[in-house]
């Protein structure tokens, strides 16, 4: 197990290195593109461009350029966004907790509800409950997050805000947990729900399919032949093995969301997370920010996939190294 973990961590480092090189090459070594101009944001002065050229060693060989860039990102952490004239790293570091709060909360909700829905659908197969739940799930998958978020805002922020059910909803935006835990929670409830709807639908369907497939496995029949209760067969045998697929999907989705994939939800609810940061940097073509957020995103995605592998090995002894 130890070598397995070491191997995954080393692998993580290698992937991150590869991603950073790739990103770097795309932005700095694409023929016909002047990275200095790109970095300088809109309407730069000749002065700025010269500064940039010097600072990033753009007149020196590529490996040196790469090294300098990484130094600015990871060591001195003083990479500057010429668009907004702020330092990029602190900006990302302050956006990360917002995204993490959003995604963690949503993940808890979607795990709980998708398991419940998937289980209920599988258990009630052959009755109307199953197709009903699956249609609901399909609707959940099909609703555009952006639209759903706007509707939720319309209801909770304006139309029915006076109504006692929604009067507690604070205005859009984010309050750090350390500042006011209650407000943090209240402000995130609807973003959480909105973000999780799609995933509840998707995961419930996947889980149901898995449960039904596992139900036909020989070892489930063995469990029944042992005289185990239906409930135990379902939870300890069918569900337990179905979780293997579930977990691997979850890890990747989680990684993508933390890495900036929750962009739409963040935009609709005005949450200053990584997604929003990326969104702004994309619209203003702010190269340093784009590059850093891409590396940041890649970090979380590879980290998540490494964690998935570990959990996977924990869930499925067959893939455990001997």
């Amino acid at each position, binding site marked *: 197990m130890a070598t397995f973990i070491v191997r995954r961590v080393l692998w993580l480092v290698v992937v991150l290195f590869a991603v950073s090189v790739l990103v770097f090459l795309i932005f700095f070594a694409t023929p016909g593109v002047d990275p200095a101009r790109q970095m300088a944001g809109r309407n730069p002065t000749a002065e700025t461009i010269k500064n940039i050229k010097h600072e990033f060693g753009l007149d020196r060989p590529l490996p040196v350029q790469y090294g300098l860039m990484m130094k600015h990102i990871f060591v001195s952490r003083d990479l500057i966004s010429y668009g907004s004239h702020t330092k990029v790293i602190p900006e990302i570091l302050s956006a990360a907790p917002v995204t993490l709060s959003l995604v963690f909360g949503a993940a808890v909700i979607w795990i709980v509800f998708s398991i419940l829905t998937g289980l209920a659908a599988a258990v009630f197969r052959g009755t109307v409950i199953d197709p009903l739940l699956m249609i609901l799930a399909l609707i959940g998958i099909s609703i555009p997050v952006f639209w759903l978020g706007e509707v939720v805002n319309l209801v909770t922020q304006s139309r029915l805000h006076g109504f006692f059910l929604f009067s507690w909803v604070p205005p859009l935006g984010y309050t750090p947990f350390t500042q006011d835990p209650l407000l943090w929670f209240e402000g995130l409830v609807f973003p959480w729900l909105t973000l999780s709807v799609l995933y509840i639908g998707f995961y419930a369907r996947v889980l149901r399919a898995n449960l039904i497939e596992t139900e036909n496995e020989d*070892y489930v029949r*063995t469990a029944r*032949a042992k*005289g185990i209760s239906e409930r135990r067969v379902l939870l300890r045998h069918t569900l337990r*093995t179905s979780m293997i697929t579930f977990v691997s999907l979850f890890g990747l989705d989680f990684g993508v969301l933390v890495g900036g994939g929750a962009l739409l939800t963040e935009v609709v609810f005005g949450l200053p997370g990584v997604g929003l940061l990326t969104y702004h940097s994309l619209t203003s073509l702010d190269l340093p920010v784009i590059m850093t957020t891409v590396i940041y995103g890649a970090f979380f995605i590879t980290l998540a996939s490494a964690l998935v592998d570990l959990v996977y090995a924990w869930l*499925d002894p067959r893939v455990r190294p001997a």
Partner: protein
Amino acid sequence: MAEPLLEVRDLKVSFRTEDGIVRAVDGISFTVDEGEVVGIVGESGSGKSVTMMSVMRLITDPNVIYQGEILYKGRNLMQVSRDAMREVRGEEIAMIFQDPMTSLNPVYTVGWQIEEQLNEHYDLKKGQARRRASELLAQVGIPRPEQRIDDYPHQFSGGMRQRVMIALALSCNPDLLIADEPTTALDVTIQAQILELIKDLRRDFGSAVVLITHDLGVVADIADRILVMYAGRIVEEGNKEQIFYDPQHPYTWGLLGSIARLDRPKARRLTAIAGQPPSLINRPKGCSFRPRCPQAFDRCRAEDPQLTVKVGDGHLDACHLSVEDKRARRDATISPELADTA
């Protein structure tokens, strides 16, 4: 005589499907006495598994339709509650399956899986269940049981996994052990080991055994009585001597003739049973075996032969041929070389 351990009375099991009603088991009756070994023999699809799965009420397909009675120790299992049935499973009747590779849950250790059953049926302390599990593993011939108890199924070979399945099945001392093709997926050498093991355990545990197989050779040594099934029905039933030395049904002859036998001079050709089993949705008129039967005559097409005693005590068959005709003709199927020289 004492009442049989298991008595199946006119069991019919069908499945509703898109193409029509599949009559997988079509009115069969038989008994299993205490401590007896009964072999059920027939080709794939003849309804062997469905019959014994029905006894365990293990068929989960919602489209199943049952008729008939399954009396276990006088109690109709078709009518007992789900909870009562759970107590029967594992504790009274245990079952092992064909494919040892897929019959154990891959994510739990073999010890866990045996302990789970013990805990379900008995009030045991944690250490007790574990000790018993390891004893069982030793009993079925798994070397170093104290260590292997913490291994996962994939760490065992096919033969060893089947031993684990047997340990699991025997863990609550069942009175009836159903073994559904326990050796079909294994090498001949491992098959010999497993059959030997089942014989030993029957002696030690005294359980009755129902052994399902498609190979008459497998039951020759171990079974007391044999049921030959074809297309959802029993076509011949008798004790071992009767089935092997005085077989009455042309299907049984075919099964015997298909085996490449080591105890006989090499046959030039095996007498295979031509064609395939019939559709269970539209069963042929008359004898179901007629389309494949080299002996068939007019009456076979018109009239469905009933399973009745024709030759001796407890020896039943469902074939229209007269006993004399059968005795005169069967050697040409079972052992043509011997028949030629005779």
